[in-house]
Structure formats: C-alpha cells, structure tokens
C-alpha cells in the first residue's frame, strides 16, 4: 500500500521559459496554514532578479510587436491549460490559503475566468483607452496606448493564485513583459502556474516568476535601469513601499501603489491602463 517512495519537491524559479535554481543556491521551506511542510521553494537573489530583467527585455521585443489578437489568443490558451489542471490548482490553493473545497474551487474558477476576461480585452482596450481627438487645424489627431516595457510586480501575499493572475494578466495583455515576485509564504499556486505558462505558447521571458522575499529582491528591481515600471500591489509594509517608491524615482519609473482589493469582485480597466504609455500623433490632412 504505502511502499511508494515519497516524491519530495524542491521547486525552482521561472525565468526565460526555463526553470533554473536560484543562482544563490538557496531554498526555503513552504508550509500550509496548519504549519505542515509542503515543499521547498527557491529563494531568489538579486542576481536572479537581474537575469529575469534580461530575459524580460529580450521577451518584450517580440511580445510588444505581436498583434493584439495574438496576445489575446496566448492568454486564452493559458486559461485553457489552467482549466485542464483545475483539480491541482484547487488542491494547491486549499493547502496554501487554508480555504475549504468550495471556496478554493470558486477562487480557481475566478482566476481562469479573469484570464479569459483580460484575453478578450487584448484587441479592444485600445479602442476604449485611445481616441481620435478633435483639433482646431488641418490635422488628423489620434491617441493610442503603447506598452510601457519591462514591469516588475509584487504579487499579493494572501491571494496566492487569483491575486497573482489579476496582477500579471493586465500587465502582459497590453504588451509588457513582467517579472513577478510570488507570495512569499504561499508560492505553490504560482509555481504550478509557471508549469502552465511553460506549456501554453507564452514566449520565453514575457512572464518570469521569482519566489522569495520581496524585501530582498524588490529594491534591486525598483532601482534597475532597465525596468520601466513597478507594481507594488503585494507590498504589505508601508516602510518597504516607501523605500521602493524612492528607489523607483531614481530612474523615473511608473509606480502602482500597494492595494488589497477584493479579488473576487469584477475588475475594471484600472490595471490595464496602469502600464501603457499614451502616444498622440498629429497627421497632416489635405496636403
């Protein structure tokens, strides 16, 4: 009966579509809400963050140039593969968050639905956020959103799957590449998500997932010259948030402040609009 050798898990990071160990070689123990040991997770260092930024910059070039339709299809594909692993996600969320069967299933379904929702916006948000502007002159004047670039994000600490998906989906659907630091104490659903991302047509480098301590990694991301924006959603300490905002100001990054919304509620376009740059073009008429 019970003579199978136990498969002990030591998970790794997700950078450039591959699963490297932390450059530092460090790991940390992950426990469920009852303090039962679940697995070991990699503890990312500043050098892993640096590698992830390189990967994200390389991934950004192709991803931002892909058609909006194509980006939507890729996100939808992620939702498809998640649906296939629904039971695993429910078990992961249950262990991580200590929620019951029903609540966990509701959270996983909401995460999948959220991806589908954002996937749908891929080729539609520009029509809503952009505009043609009436101007007093012989010009056709229009405004379009363009991706900001490489975005670093701190995922919510409590909502390990739904919160994570709600943070990264709007970042990537508009054409950005993201480096996300998963929930420190609840990283397993994020790690399962990386296994989904690796098998669902997301180009390498577009989504990079680090596990570890945001207080250690995030300052390097906030000060990094090749990161264009930072999403502080999951930062729980006001002191750290302030420090990160100051670091980010050094290279004039776009910053989204910490937040703890009800992730189950229907989202608005706020996150989609957070990491786009507005480009306005004056085109001469009748020349």
């Amino acid at each position, binding site marked *: 009966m019970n003579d199978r050798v136990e498969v002990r898990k030591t998970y790794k990071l997700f950078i450039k579509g591959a699963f490297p160990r932390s450059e530092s070689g460090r790991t940390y123990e992950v426990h469920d809400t009852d303090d039962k040991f679940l697995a070991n997770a990699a503890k990312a260092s500043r050098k892993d963050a*640096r590698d992830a*930024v390189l990967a994200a*910059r390389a991934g950004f070039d192709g991803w931002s140039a892909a058609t909006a339709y194509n980006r939507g299809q890729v996100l939808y594909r992620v939702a498809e593969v998640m649906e296939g692993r629904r039971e695993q996600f429910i078990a992961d969320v249950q262990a991580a968050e200590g929620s019951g069967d029903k609540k966990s299933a509701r959270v996983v379904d909401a995460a999948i639905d959220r991806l589908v929702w954002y996937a749908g916006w891929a080729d539609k948000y520009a029509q809503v956020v952009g505009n043609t502007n009436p101007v007093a002159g012989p010009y056709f004047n229009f405004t379009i959103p363009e991706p900001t670039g490489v975005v670093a994000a701190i995922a919510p600490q409590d909502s390990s799957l739904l919160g994570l998906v709600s943070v990264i989906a709007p970042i990537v659907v508009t054409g950005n590449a993201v480096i996300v630091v998963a929930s420190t104490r609840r990283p397993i659903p994020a790690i399962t998500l990386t296994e989904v991302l690796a098998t669902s047509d997301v180009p390498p480098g577009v989504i990079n997932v680090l596990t570890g301590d945001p207080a250690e990694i995030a300052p*390097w991301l906030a*000060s990094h*010259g090749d990161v264009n924006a930072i999403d502080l959603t999951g930062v729980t300490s006001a002191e750290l948030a302030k420090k990160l905002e100051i670091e980010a100001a050094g290279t004039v990054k776009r910053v989204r402040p910490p937040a703890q919304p009800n992730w189950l509620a229907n989202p608005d376009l706020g996150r989609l609009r957070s990491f786009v740059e507005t480009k306005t073009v004056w085109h001469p008429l009748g020349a």
Partner: protein
Amino acid sequence: MRTIAEPLNTTSSLREFLHGLPGVDEVGVKARATALGTRSIKNESKAWAIDMAIRMVDLTTLEGMDTPGKVRAMCAKALRPDPTDPTVPSVAAVCVYGDMAPVARAVVGDNLHVAAVATAFPSGRASLEVKLQDVRDAVAGGADEIDMVIDRGAFLSGNYGLVNEQIIAVKVACGTAHLKVILETGELRTLDNVRRASWLAMMAGADFIKTSTGKVPVAATPAVTIVMLQAVRDYYALTGSQIGVKPAGGIRTSKDAIKYLVLVKEIAGEAWLTPDLFRFGASTLLNDLLMQRQRMAVGHYSGPDYVTID
C-alpha cells in the same frame, strides 16, 4: 620540447615539427576552462578587470552594410566609450574592412590603432596576389594592424608549406603594420589542429594569433583560447619573443570577458595582461562592460537605454 634549429620552410619539415608537438588533452583543457571560469572575482578586482577589458577591446564592425557614417560613429565611441564618464579608458583599436581604414584613421588620428581585415576575409579563398594587394591597400589606407585569415583548406589538407609561405608573404606586405593571423578555429575541428596552426603562424612571423573571423557558427571558446595561450607561452620559452592572443566572436558579456582574463593570467602569465598582448575582438561586449561599470559606480543595475546603440 625540441628547439627550432633548422629552418622550417617545407611542407615535410613543418609536418615533422607540427605533428611532433604534444597532443592536446581535450577533456583536460575543457575541465580547466570550466574550473577557471568558476573563480569568484571580488569587487575591487572586478573594477580593475572591467577597465582592463575595455582597454583590450578591438571594437569591430565587419558587415556588408557598413557605411562611412557607421564607421565614424564607432570610432568616436572607441575613443570615448562613455561620454558621460571621462574616467572610462579608450579601447585598444577599431577593426574594420580594408576600404574603411581611411575613414577610421581620419577619426581616431594617432590615438588608437586601426586594424583592417584583409586577404579575402573571411574565407581566404583568393589568389595570393589578390590577398597581398588587399593587404597593401589596407596599409596604404592607414591601417597599422592587419588581420589576415589562413588558408584553412590548405592547412586541413596538410599543405603546411603553402600556409607558411602565404603568412610570410603577407608579413612582408604589411611592412611595419602588426600582423594578426586568424586561425578560424571553428573550422579546424580539433584542438590538436589549433595548437599546430598556432605554432605555424607564430613561426611564420605573426605578431598576434586570433581565434576567429566571427563569420562561422563556432567562434572563440575558452578551451581554444587556453590552447593558444599555452602555445604563446611555450613559444616565448623557446624563442624569447612574446606573441599576442586575440579571441574574437561570441564574447558578449563582462562575465565572459573576465573569465578570459583569468585564463590569460593563469595560462600565459601576468605579462600578457596588457592590450599589447591580449585583445578582445568584439562589438556588443563594450556596451556590457560599460553597463557593468555604471552599475559599480551608481550601485544599481543599468540598462541598454544608458549606452549607445551600435
């Protein structure tokens, strides 16, 4: 090791000498390269190594689409790699095609070396007369370093005498210009051949031996560089003259460059840690060195937005 007593100028005498060289322990060389590559370099040494690597760069553009404007821009960068930081040293030389040598010389003046590739680069498939004229043109155009390619076809078919004669003839055509001999190690197949080609080039009068043209898939590797560094070290022990080494192609990061500097120190010795005896043939490496330098100066990671686009 035997001495080079008799003049070696025939295929048979060269074959006897070159095939008498000890064989290369390929597994051992690769293990050595890996072991030396893992050495940890602390901050102070790293700062020194980055500046030394910048001073060793032969900033290169060898494209069919090179324009005088692009060569001029590259030369300006070679003189002043980071205009925002006057403490950054100039690179060692610029490396261009022969017809661009006058353009490069006009910008760099006497401040930098101008290296020109010649002898039907990169294939080397042309008559000797064409190759020599190519060299004379480049020298007349202001190049003071000539990067020639050996005839790999002749080398691989064992016609060492022909390769030897061509290098000697090119050396004569160079006049006072330094001669770098490109072995194109990616096409030589074995490390034994790399060792033989290195000796052949050095005995024929090379001032530098260079790994690659950068035009074939396999360019400079640490293992190949180790074999070449061993060759220049042994040649120095035998003859008392120091030959330089130039790995080129595929070295893109500061980390790689520093690994090569470790190889130079450990294999050839500290005497080779100078731009006169060791160079990097590279184009994108310089930007990475500058970003690392900026990171050490300001304390946070830099990005490609803060260096020029090549």
